[in-house]
Structure formats: structure tokens, C-alpha cells
């Protein structure tokens, strides 16, 4: 038996993805510290606990550098577990490498649909957290129809993640009989939305959905707040991922009544959890250990650790193939603080869906609360949103 | 006058920069083996004239005929290959290359096998500096290097822009000697200069320009007595 289990991963210490990536890495680190405090993870193949050793390099948000660092983890550090960096862009380069070297890639948040095409027959990837991004807006489309919204404007930043959400929303809405009265992309780097907002207003939509990275969302919300324009419904995705960051950047006034997805930790899976701590317990332990406030990235990082842990505990042999088989076996049967873990044959996550939430005032401030579908609703939505004074 | 056909004929040359007419219809011709002096007050268009003939820019009007053929549409390097070259009033050497390499560029691209860059440098008195970077020459040495480079292309028509400025009397007379010897070998020269003594020693045919126009054309002797030339150029 090995004396330690080497787990390799990357994080972006600087650059575009550093905000989410460092949080995600912190979550994973927290998991590693926790299991090591108990003497390591239980490895079924050897019938005992073995300590884990996290080997992590800084890719500075550069894909070129990330590729060579992934390669290093595989070929030189010879890690047994390979965990991707945050997001699709930094995950993308790991996929062919992992496949080539027959090592299972634990994909934390690389949700691009293109990573999981049946045609590729790639078994060396497992998406541990969210569903693929093109699944996300389906609930949103239903919600809009339920509100009786007919005219929808969709604006998205030109990147894979945002674009696939925008396209799904558009096609689902059309199927449901709504009109997409505005559908435009802006370059990723767009930081000013005032004129675009005025153009959207010309189309007279009842709902506006903007998909982008958090800098896009922040600029969009800021510009909306100071534009003097009014739309009955406004949707942006990033409060779901890092609510506090967006709130701090935008300010409470501009956040009120905005819709977003709801994902852990904003949905709190406590009672349902079968594996690992409940979200409340995790949050308490994490902040006690000196961590910052938690967000989806933190949870995703920690959750990946849990899945790895469970795979090792179930795999009959200490091999990649055996781990993958074990994962298939417990897929759909375990529930963590991140929700139901269920992957399909290609490794894509299908267990979770993302409810729609709205940022509502509460006595203690603002809260993003699930409002649809009904079974997960925690509050009553406010539609149309009140006009600003 | 030389019995042969002129090597260069310039007719009604025009060039303007914005609103400024730097050349306003200048005409003259030069025969092989002949030296034409070109003088005129500062800013009268002498250098512009050389620029036009050597192809630094396209002219706005008029004709330049070389060996009977119009050449005003040819790019500079083609004119060089046909045998026209010039020196620069403000020297423009290849600063980062050595003195020898400076001449070598010209020798390899136009001069052909029978040009030996070292011989040219010896002839012009720069041989001892051959391996120094051109950057380390002072401006008059750089001017001489410019002449060497022009010579390396085997010019049949050489346009010399104020090569005498900054030379002392002894150096001036040896330069005059040198230019005359080129002419004796059949080269045609246009020599721009302010120093009348120097011009006097290289030629007796003179063109004086003023404000882009020909002010005077004829014998140098007469020029020094011409009241308009005295007024505009020589000073009372």
C-alpha cells in the first residue's frame, strides 16, 4: 500500500479565474486537512486509512501553463487522483491528457457540455458538482412561462458557459411558446451596458436575462440600477455562484428582487445528506478553522473531496478503472451537502437541478431564496419587481 | 558641352508639402562626365530636388528622364540599380552595422562581384575604421561613409548633397579633386553646395535655386555678379 495518496490539482493564484479558483481550492484543502486529522482516507483496496497529500500548482489562469502543470502532475508527481481547476476553460486542457494517461479526472466545475459527448466515449472524467451548463436554464424557462411572461430579452457574454445557457434558454422558451424579442452577444470583456440596456428597452421585454461572468453581471446590474430603466424581471446567474462577492460589488439596492439560480450553499441540504457533513455543519467547521465565508466554489471544492473519498472507499482495486466502476455503482445513491450525486455514462452530472431564486429583503439584509419550482420554494416571489423610488 | 545625349533631363519638376511648394517647375539636364553645381539659400529646394531624382518620394508634376527614359514612377531601389545614387545632407548610415558592412550591403545588392568594399573604404580614407560600428563615427565621417556606400553601387549619376559642410580648406580641396576625378571617369554629378570656393573648384556650370524655382542658370562667374543671386544667396 502507498504511504500517502497523492492528489494533484491546480489553482489560479491570479488572473481571470483566480477569484473562484482560490475559493474552490480552499474547500478542497479543508477536506484534505479534515481527513488527515482522522488519519487519512479509508481505502478499500488496502482495507485501511491512508493519509492524503495534496499537490497543487498555480496556473495563473493560463491554459498553456495549466496544460503543462497537469502533465507534470500526471507524469512526474504521479498523482493517483487528478482534480481539475475551476471552470471549463482551465479544465479543458486536462481532459485529453487525463484520457491519454488513463487517469480519472475529477471535474469540479468544468460544466461545458462538450466535455461529455457520448460520441467521444471518454470514461476518464467525472463531473462532481453542478450539471452541465446547458441544463441550467430549463427551470428558469418554465418559471417565466408560469409567470405568464411572453416577451424575453436575452443578452450574453461570448463565452462557452454563458453562451450555452443563453442558447438553452432561448430554445426552451421557444418550445414553450414565448417570444425571444432580443438575443445578442457581447464580448466577454464588456464592462459597460448602459447603451445596450437602452436598446433592450426598445424591444419592450417583460423579462431580461443576462448571462456572463461575474464581472459582466456586476457591470450589468450597476448600469441597470443607474440607468433609470425598468424591467419587470431581471435574471443574472452569478449571485448563485458567489452571492456575497456580487452583493458587495453591486450594493444592496441594485440586487433587490433580481432573480438568479439557487445552488448550495444558498440551498441548504441538511436533512437529506447521507454522506459527509450537512451544509450547516460544514459552514460552521469551515469558518471556525479560519476560512472565509463560503460560496458555491468552496462547496464544490469540498464536495469533490467527498466524492474522491467515497470512490476510494468503494473501489475494489486501487486503480483508476476500479474507481470509475465504483462511481457508477454509487451514482444516484449518495447525497452530499452539494445535493444528489448522480452521473451518466459519460461522467456528466445529472443529479442536481438548479431552482430559480430571487434576492429578497429579509430583516437581516438580503437573501437569495428559492422560489421555483414549488417543491423547493423557500419564499414567495415578487413579480413584477417594484419600481425603484 | 558634351556631345553625347544627356544622362539626366529634368523638366518642370513639381513637389509640394501641404501648402508649401518646395519645387515649382525646375528644369535642367546633365551629361555624362559633367558636373552641375546646385546652390541656393536654405530651404530653396535643393535637397528636395535630389530626393525627387533619387526616388525618395513621387513628384507631383514634371518629368525625370534618365538615359531618355522617364523614371519618375520607379521606386528608389530600381533607380539605384539603373545607376543613380546620392549622398545625404544629414548622414543616414546603418548605425548598428560596421563601416565595412555598411558598404557591403550596397556592394552585394547592386555592385556585383567586381566591387571590393575594402578598396572603396581605402580610397575614401575610412579603411582604418572598417570594423567600427558606424554609430561611433562622427557626422563628417558618416558623410564620407555615405559617399562610399553610394560609390559601391557603381553610379553613373551621383547626386552629392552638401558634402563640403564641416570640412576645412585642405579637406575641401581634396574633396573637389575627388569629385572631378569621378567626372573624368565618365560619371555625371549634381553637386549641391553653399561654399562658392568649393563649387568653383569642381565646376563652372551652376544652377541657383530660390523658393523652388530656378533663379539663375549659367556660368558660376556670372552668378557671383548677378544681383538676384547676391540678394537671395550670397548676401551683400
Amino acid at each position, binding site marked *: 500500500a502507498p504511504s500517502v495518496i497523492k492528489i494533484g490539482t491546480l489553482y489560479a493564484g491570479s488572473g481571470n479565474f483566480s477569484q473562484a479558483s482560490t475559493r474552490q481550492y480552499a474547500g478542497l484543502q479543508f477536506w484534505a486537512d479534515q481527513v488527515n486529522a482522522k488519519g487519512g482516507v479509508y481505502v478499500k483496496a488496502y482495507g485501511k486509512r491512508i493519509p492524503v497529500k495534496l499537490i497543487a500548482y498555480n496556473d495563473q489562469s493560463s491554459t498553456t501553463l495549466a496544460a503543462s502543470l497537469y502533465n507534470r502532475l500526471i507524469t512526474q508527481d504521479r498523482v493517483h487522483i487528478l482534480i481539475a481547476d475551476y471552470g471549463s476553460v482551465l479544465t479543458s486542457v486536462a481532459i485529453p491528457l487525463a484520457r491519454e494517461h488513463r487517469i480519472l479526472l475529477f471535474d469540479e466545475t468544468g460544466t461545458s457540455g462538450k466535455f461529455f459527448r457520448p460520441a467521444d466515449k471518454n470514461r476518464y472524467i467525472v463531473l462532481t458538482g453542478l450539471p452541465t451548463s446547458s441544463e441550467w436554464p430549463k427551470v428558469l424557462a418554465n418559471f417565466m412561462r408560469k409567470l405568464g411572461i411572453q416577451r424575453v430579452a436575452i443578452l450574453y457574454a461570448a463565452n462557452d458557459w454563458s453562451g450555452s445557457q443563453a442558447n438553452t434558454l432561448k430554445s426552451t422558451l421557444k418550445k414553450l411558446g414565448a417570444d425571444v424579442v432580443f438575443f445578442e*452577444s*457581447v464580448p466577454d470583456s464588456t464592462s459597460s451596458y448602459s447603451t445596450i440596456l*437602452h*436598446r433592450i428597452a426598445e424591444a419592450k421585454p417583460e423579462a431580461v436575462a443576462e448571462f456572463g461572468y461575474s464581472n459582466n453581471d456586476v457591470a450589468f446590474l450597476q448600469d441597470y440600477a443607474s440607468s433609470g430603466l425598468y424591467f419587470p424581471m431581471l435574471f443574472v446567474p452569478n449571485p448563485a455562484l458567489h452571492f456575497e462577492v456580487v452583493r458587495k*460589488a453591486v450594493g444592496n439596492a441594485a440586487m433587490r428582487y433580481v432573480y438568479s439560480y439557487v445552488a448550495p450553499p444558498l440551498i441548504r441540504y441538511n436533512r437529506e445528506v447521507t454522506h459527509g457533513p450537512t451544509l450547516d455543519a460544514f459552514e460552521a467547521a469551515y469558518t471556525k478553522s479560519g476560512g472565509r465565508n463560503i460560496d458555491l466554489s468552496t462547496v464544490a471544492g469540498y464536495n469533490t473531496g467527498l466524492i474522491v473519498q467515497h470512490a476510494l472507499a468503494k473501489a475494489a482495486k486501487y486503480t483508476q478503472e476500479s474507481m470509475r466502476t465504483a462511481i457508477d455503482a454509487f451514482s444516484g445513491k449518495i447525497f452530499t451537502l452539494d445535493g444528489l450525486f448522480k452521473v451518466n455514462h459519460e461522467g456528466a452530472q445529472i443529479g442536481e437541478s438548479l431552482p430559480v431564486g430571487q434576492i429578497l429583503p429579509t430583516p437581516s439584509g438580503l437573501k437569495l431564496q428559492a422560489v421555483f419550482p414549488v417543491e423547493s420554494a423557500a419564499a414567495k416571489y415578487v413579480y413584477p419587481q417594484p419600481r425603484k423610488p | 558641352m558634351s556631345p553625347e545625349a544627356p544622362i539626366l533631363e529634368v523638366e518642370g519638376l513639381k513637389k509640394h508639402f501641404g501648402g508649401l511648394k518646395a519645387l515649382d517647375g525646375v528644369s535642367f539636364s546633365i551629361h555624362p562626365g559633367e558636373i552641375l553645381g546646385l546652390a541656393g539659400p536654405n530651404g530653396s529646394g535643393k535637397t528636395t530636388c535630389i530626393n525627387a531624382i533619387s526616388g*525618395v518620394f513621387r513628384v507631383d508634376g514634371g518629368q525625370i528622364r534618365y538615359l531618355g527614359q522617364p523614371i519618375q514612377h520607379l521606386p528608389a531601389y530600381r533607380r539605384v540599380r539603373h545607376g543613380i545614387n546620392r549622398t545625404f545632407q544629414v548622414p543616414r548610415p546603418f548605425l548598428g552595422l560596421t563601416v565595412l558592412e555598411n558598404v557591403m550591403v550596397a556592394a552585394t545588392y547592386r555592385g556585383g562581384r567586381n566591387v571590393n568594399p575594402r578598396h572603396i573604404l581605402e580610397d575614401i580614407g575610412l579603411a582604418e575604421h572598417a570594423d567600427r560600428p558606424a554609430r561611433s563615427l562622427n557626422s563628417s565621417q558618416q558623410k564620407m561613409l555615405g559617399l562610399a556606400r553610394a560609390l559601391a553601387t557603381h553610379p553613373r549619376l551621383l547626386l552629392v548633397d552638401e558634402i563640403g559642410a564641416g570640412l576645412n580648406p585642405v579637406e575641401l580641396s581634396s574633396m573637389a579633386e575627388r569629385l572631378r576625378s569621378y567626372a573624368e571617369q565618365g560619371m555625371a554629378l549634381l553637386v549641391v553646395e553653399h561654399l562658392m570656393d568649393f563649387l568653383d573648384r569642381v565646376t563652372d556650370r551652376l544652377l541657383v535655386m530660390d523658393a523652388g524655382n530656378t533663379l539663375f542658370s549659367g556660368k558660376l562667374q556670372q552668378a557671383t555678379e548677378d544681383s538676384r543671386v547676391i540678394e537671395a544667396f550670397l548676401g551683400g
Partner: protein
Amino acid sequence: MSLFEYAVLAGLFYGLYFALVGVGLNLIFGVMRIINLAHGDFLMLGAYGAFYIYHLLGWNPLWAIPIELVVFLGLGLPLYYLLVPRLQKSGDPEMLSFILFFGLSQVIEALAVFAFGNDQRSIPTSVFGGAPIHIAGQIYPSSWVVSAAVALIGIVLIYLYLYHTRAGRATRAIMTERSEAVVTGISVHRVSAVAFGIGIASAALAGIFSPFMFGAIEPSMGLGITVTSFVIIVIGSLGNPLGTVLGGILYGEALMLMQTFLTSWSEMFPYVLLILILLVKPSGLLGKAVRSA
């Protein structure tokens, strides 16, 4: 057609702001022939300054203006003496500055990550009174109007410095002919150091308003801004601070009009515009053609 008018006026506000973003870069390039690849990073530092003044001290970000002008001028002088004289002793300072300031920008960004973390931050636009401002029948964010106004004041001050003070005249003299300035008795280093300080202080000044103009700030925002600044100063022509105003406004107008009418191509168009302008006027809109022989 009101969308068009909206975009034109928005372009003007935006453009004035961008003129301020670029003007310091142009000043530094003009005086020192230095390509300051860290320009955007100084802007980023200025942005965080405003951020903390607002969030920690609870002051209006406008207070950052006097504070940062002093701090960044003070920072510029020692930085100049530390970097530039050494650089100018080398063979090709203009090109080497490219690497030097690339390195510096890396250092600044890294330190910023340590100091500020890499979360995106911003300041609510409501600090300037919140209510949008009505101009010519259109409604504009008050923060835009304030930013444009401050930018205009900043540029006018730089103009006054350059054209109506003795040190400013010396600065222009160095810009046009460094060697001649030396023999005229100008303390080239002292004047350049001040210009360097003004250059980065103006970047910091622009940074104060970047949370409103760019939505959010983060340590890695620098490079993109540096690139945009270069586009702007080249459009107007290098070494000509007035040209930068023109470049900034053209940039702002191009961006806003494209965002209005051809949204997905909006970020591309300013680059195409730059190339077109340079092909017609190779040394920028206000550039003078130099004599080649």
C-alpha cells in the same frame, strides 16, 4: 432617433473618461520614450484606494482624489529614480522598457492579490446621489457624468501644466528633443520624474472612477486597460497629450455606437478603427509627418 443620440452622448462621457485613462501613458511615453506596460496596474491601485476609502473609512470616493494625487506623485518620483535612469543607459531603452514594465506589472498585480485578495470589488453607483441625471432629454448614470467631469478637469489641469508653467514647458522641450533640453540647462531627470509622477497619478485618478465605468475591479484588470490605453493614445498620436483627448472620445463613440447597433462586434470595432486611421494617417490623427531625408 433617440437611441443614436443616447449613444453619442454616452460615447462622449465614456470617451472623456478614457482620455483620462490614456493621457498619463502618453505623457510618460512622450517624455521618457517608455512603454509603461504597468499603466493599467497603477490604475488598478488607484481603484482599490477609492474602494477602501469608501468601505473602510466610509468616505465618499471623491475624497480619494486629493489623497491619491499626493500618494501617487510621491510614489512616482522614487520609482522613476529607481528604474528609469538605469534603463536609459541601455542600448535600446524604448524596447527594454517593454520588459521592465511587464515585470513591474506582474509584481504589482501579485502584491495586489496578497493585499486585496482576488475577489471582484466595486462601489455602489449610488454614492453620487443615485438619481440618474437628465441631459438633453436622455437619462444618464450620475456616476458617468461625474467621472467625465473629473476627467475633463484632470485633462485641463495637465494641459495647463504643460502649456502654461515653466516645468511644463520644460517637459514639452524634453518630449521634442531630449539632447537639446540637456544643453539648455534643464534638469532632465527632475522634470521627467515629475512627469512620471503625474503620469501614474492620472492613472490612479482614473482608477478612482473605474468601479463605475468598468462595473467591478480586480487585481488582474491592468493589462486590458493598458492595451486599451495604447489604442487610444496611438489613435490621437504618441507624445501628444491633446491627441489623447481626441483618441479617447473617438474610442468612446465607436464603442457606444457599435454597442447600440452591432452589439456583438462592439469590442472589435475600436481596433479596426485604429488600423484604418493609421493607414490613412500613419502617425495618428494629430501626428506630424516627419521628414525622411
